[in-house]
Each structure stands twice: as C-alpha cells, then as structure tokens.
C-alpha cells in the first residue's frame, strides 16, 4: 500500500508502473483520477486551495485502504492526494487498485474514493469571480459512502 499526500503533481504512467513494479501476476487495475473543474455550482473556478489536517490525512487514507483490503482481494493500492494551490484541469487525486479480479478492483477503487470523499480531512476553497468560497460537502457523497455499509 502506498499513500501519499503532496503538493507536487504526479504522472499517471509512472504511478501505475510503480504500482505494478515486480508484480507480473497483476492482470487488472482499476483507477480513478479526480481533476479540478473550471466550473462548479454554476460559477467559473479560477483556482483551488486544498487545505488538510496533516497529522491526520495520511492516517485516515491508510485506514480507508486497510478497510478496502479487508473487504476485497487486492494485490496493490496506490492513493495520491494533492494539497495546496491547484488550477483548473490539474490532477487532484489518484486511486489505483490492482486485483486478480476485475470486479473487486473496481469495487475497492470506488469504495476508497467514496470514503476518501467523506472521511479524509481535506477541504477545498475555490477562487471565483465573486471571490473566495469554501466548497460545500455534497449529500450525494455521504450517500455514496453509506451504500457500502449495506453489503
């Protein structure tokens, strides 16, 4: 398991290569990439500042990955989340999961994203023409995370 919180950008090909490194038995990788959109809630977004709770972030992400590993057969996981100042089209987050079973890779990847969205201490502040605003948490994200408890 690799979990990183960083200001720097990341390269998808390199990260997936690192995930697979020395594991020729890996046949399936599901990945999610989150990007800064140029619009949100009807307003243009010029940039984003991602604040986090440094002492907790890594721990929270590792706990989410550990939960995923308990629920699904996973060979390798990589989670990278950026913090600091970002601009539209910038990469924010990568979650990549390798498993022998395609379905488990997809499920674990989506589970990690859903929990990251509701459990990991990150907060987005957007710069818009009307000024700076904190992004509101979405009820749909809470629902997405809660749905995993039913299974």
């Amino acid at each position, binding site marked *: 398991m690799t979990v990183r919180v960083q200001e720097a950008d990341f390269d998808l090909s390199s990260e997936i290569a690192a995930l697979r490194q020395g594991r020729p038995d890996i046949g399936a990788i599901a990945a999610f990439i989150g990007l800064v959109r140029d619009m949100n809630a009807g307003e243009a977004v010029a940039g984003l500042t991602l604040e986090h*709770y440094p*002492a*907790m972030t890594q*721990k*929270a992400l590792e706990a989410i990955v550990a939960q995923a590993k308990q629920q699904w057969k996973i060979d390798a996981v990589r989670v990278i989340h950026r913090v600091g100042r970002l601009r539209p089209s910038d990469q924010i987050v990568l979650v990549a999961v390798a498993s022998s079973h395609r379905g488990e890779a997809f499920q674990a990847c989506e589970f990690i994203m859903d929990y990251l969205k509701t459990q990991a*201490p*990150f907060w*987005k*502040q957007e710069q818009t023409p009307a000024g700076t605003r904190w992004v509101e*948490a979405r009820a749909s994200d809470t629902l997405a995370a809660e749905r995993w408890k039913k299974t």
Partner: protein
Amino acid sequence: MALTVLYFARLRETLGVAREEIAPAHDLSSVAGLLDHLRSRGGAWQAALAPSQPFRVAVNQDMADALTALRDGDEVALFPPVTGG
C-alpha cells in the same frame, strides 16, 4: 486536564483561531463536554458549534463523535464536512 484543539477550513476562519491549548477548570470527560465548554464562550462559538451545525470532530486524528471520551493530552480537531477528492 490539558487539551489541544485544532480548527480547520471555514471553522478556522469563522472562529479566527487555528489552534489553542485548553486547560479547563473541570475535567471534560467527552467531546460533548468540550463542545459545551467552547459554546459557553458565546457569539461565533455558540453559533458555529451549535448542535444543528454540520461540523465534524476528530480525537487524536481519528474521526469521533460527541460520545468519544477525552483524556489529558488529547488532540481534538473541529472542522466542516470534508470536501477532498
């Protein structure tokens, strides 16, 4: 009893403080007690930490709730619902 309390994002801005050390006269046995203590400051504290507000609590970097027990030296963080990813 001494506690470190951290505030993040909008809550940090609203309350105007990022971190404080609290040494209350009476021991606060749980998160609920700490919240009552902070609300008793009135004004923005009472408003921002009202039970109807959707803030979250972590104790020693783990998600917590009002019933979570507090011990001397704990680090408590208060923050809005998270919006990463």
